[in-house]
């Protein structure tokens, strides 16, 4: 079974006037996938539809070969979920909580307890595994949420903003853990995040969402997106006309606060076009560097430069 997730014409809305998920069609195979999008793009909602928490208003979906609406129990038995929100039950220590959730997943009690120690050790909570979870810092809670998602060794792991609220060191460690888990052939991961570096660091494939739709699906590093060449330029003179002309040629432009313009030119266009337009509009190119297209460029290109978020 190569296709782990298959969605066809999925719609979902929390209110009548706005669709949160709009006619999503998606096929996900084995590996580590990133679900990327600005806040409110529908990433978490899509993840919850896949988990069977939310029922789509129309469409059809299968996860690991099971219908997401009819076989929820079968789906949930095989998946692990790390929620974004703070959701740990107080009054328990980490070992008790993790093994408890393992038991709820269908693990025998003794096995769950043994495995709880292992996963807590793995995520770096070995020293504090007997501490009450309400005394944990945000970073520790994130690790514990990952541990509880791993306890029953799921085939498919859903991680919702896994590095949220973590300090830089903790974040690096979390990403290392995800990378390590992702190396296992038997484990497939879907990471929802609005942080591009997280996706870039951990995923082989990226699915970009915006306004409830899938706007792009491609490999992170192969840059199937290398439909663009990226240039960084600084201009003096008639900048506005210069940029307007580029936009008319389907170029994507973003400008930083140092007036450095990052320009994505479609592959079929040569860099000469920049100089030609500069000459025609009376602009002077003062700085010109060709650089590698990044995931950020892909993202900006997919959702548009002038996105509200």
């Amino acid at each position, binding site marked *: 079974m190569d296709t782990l997730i298959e969605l066809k014409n999925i719609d979902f809305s929390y209110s009548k006037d706005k669709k949160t998920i709009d006619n999503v069609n998606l096929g996900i195979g084995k590996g580590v996938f990133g679900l990327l999008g600005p806040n409110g793009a529908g990433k978490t909602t899509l993840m919850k539809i896949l988990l069977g928490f939310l029922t789509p208003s129309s469409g059809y979906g299968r996860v690991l070969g099971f219908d997401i609406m009819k076989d929820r129990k079968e789906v949930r038995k095989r998946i692990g979920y790390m929620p974004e929100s703070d959701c740990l039950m107080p009054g328990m220590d980490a070992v008790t909580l993790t093994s408890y959730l393992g038991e709820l*997943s269908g693990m025998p009690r003794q096995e769950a307890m043994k495995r709880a120690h292992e996963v807590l050790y793995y995520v770096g909570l070995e020293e504090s595994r007997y501490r009450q979870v309400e005394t944990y810092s945000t970073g520790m809670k994130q690790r514990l949420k990952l541990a509880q998602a791993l306890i029953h060794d799921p085939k498919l792991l859903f991680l919702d903003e896994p590095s949220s609220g973590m300090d830089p060191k903790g974040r690096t460690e979390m990403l290392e853990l995800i990378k390590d888990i992702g190396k296992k052939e038997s484990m497939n991961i879907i990471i929802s995040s609005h942080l591009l570096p997280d996706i870039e660091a951990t995923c082989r494939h990226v699915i970009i969402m915006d306004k409830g739709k899938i706007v792009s699906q491609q490999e992170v590093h192969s840059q199937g997106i290398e439909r663009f060449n990226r240039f960084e330029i600084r201009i003096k003179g008639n900048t506005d006309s210069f940029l307007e002309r580029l936009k008319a040629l389907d170029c994507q432009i973003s400008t930083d606060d140092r007036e450095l313009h990052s320009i994505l030119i479609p592959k079929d266009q040569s860099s000469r076009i920049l100089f030609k337009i500069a000459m025609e509009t009376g602009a002077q190119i003062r700085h010109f560097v060709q650089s590698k297209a990044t995931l950020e460029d892909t993202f900006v290109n997919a959702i548009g430069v002038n996105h509200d978020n």
Partner: protein
Amino acid sequence: MTIREKGYHQWEGELQTPKTPWMPIFLSGIRMVFKRKFAKLLFITSCLPFVFFLIVIYISTRPELEMFKDAVKFLTDDRMVFDSIMSNGPTIFLLMLMGIFFGSDLISGDIQSRSFPLYFSRPLERKDYLLGKYAILMFYYLLFTLVPGLVLVLFKVIFTGKILFTPRFIAALILTPVLTSIFLASLTLVISSLSGNSKYSRIMLILLFYMATPVTAILSHAFSGQYFFLFGPTSTIKQMSSFLFDAKLAFKYPGWLSLALIVLVSIGSYFFLHRRIGKLEAQIESGN
């Protein structure tokens, strides 16, 4: 080499499909309750009615304790004895206290900690979640009603050598504590599901359990209507127990009405809770 250095490793075991998916919630819940502050004190106190009735049954069988005979005269009728054992004021009071201390946060705690995604990302349905929560309360309620009741039957047989042995009596002996427990557990869980604030749930339960009966008594006197007692949990349980044991009714309205009310409230509560959990789950999922 440590596990962490070795990297992530797979679990070799096999996941089971348990027939009772609610069992881990139940087992974890009873352990958590037992660890609570005042739990042991409350449990010891809850044994006092049992000890009292044990002494009373013993006294009634000893000819040398003739001077107490008048006080324990009612013990000649097994129906009245066990009606009193199952629905006496102190026992009901203590059961309600258990609901307030141990049950008020059973659902509200999960609302507050927003832990529904952790439960429902497992192969667990709403009914399993609810059964687990019901089972926690039912365990402690039955431990202090059904178990002492059955032990006292045994002692009664040992001390007196006889006991009423009719199908109705046996049914009442089991049904009264079971229905009382379901009824109190239902009310406790409904109140607990109304708010994510356990203190609020506790206050609501105190009002419902301890204020309803005096209010119904006042209304009953003010309007000269015994039916008002139907709305007090204590009086309703008492009336149902007397009806089931075929003992003298405490209030002047048909006993089956209390039985019907308890059954209806319990069934209604389950459906309410089922919908409520679904709604809470959706609210939390949508981030509201």
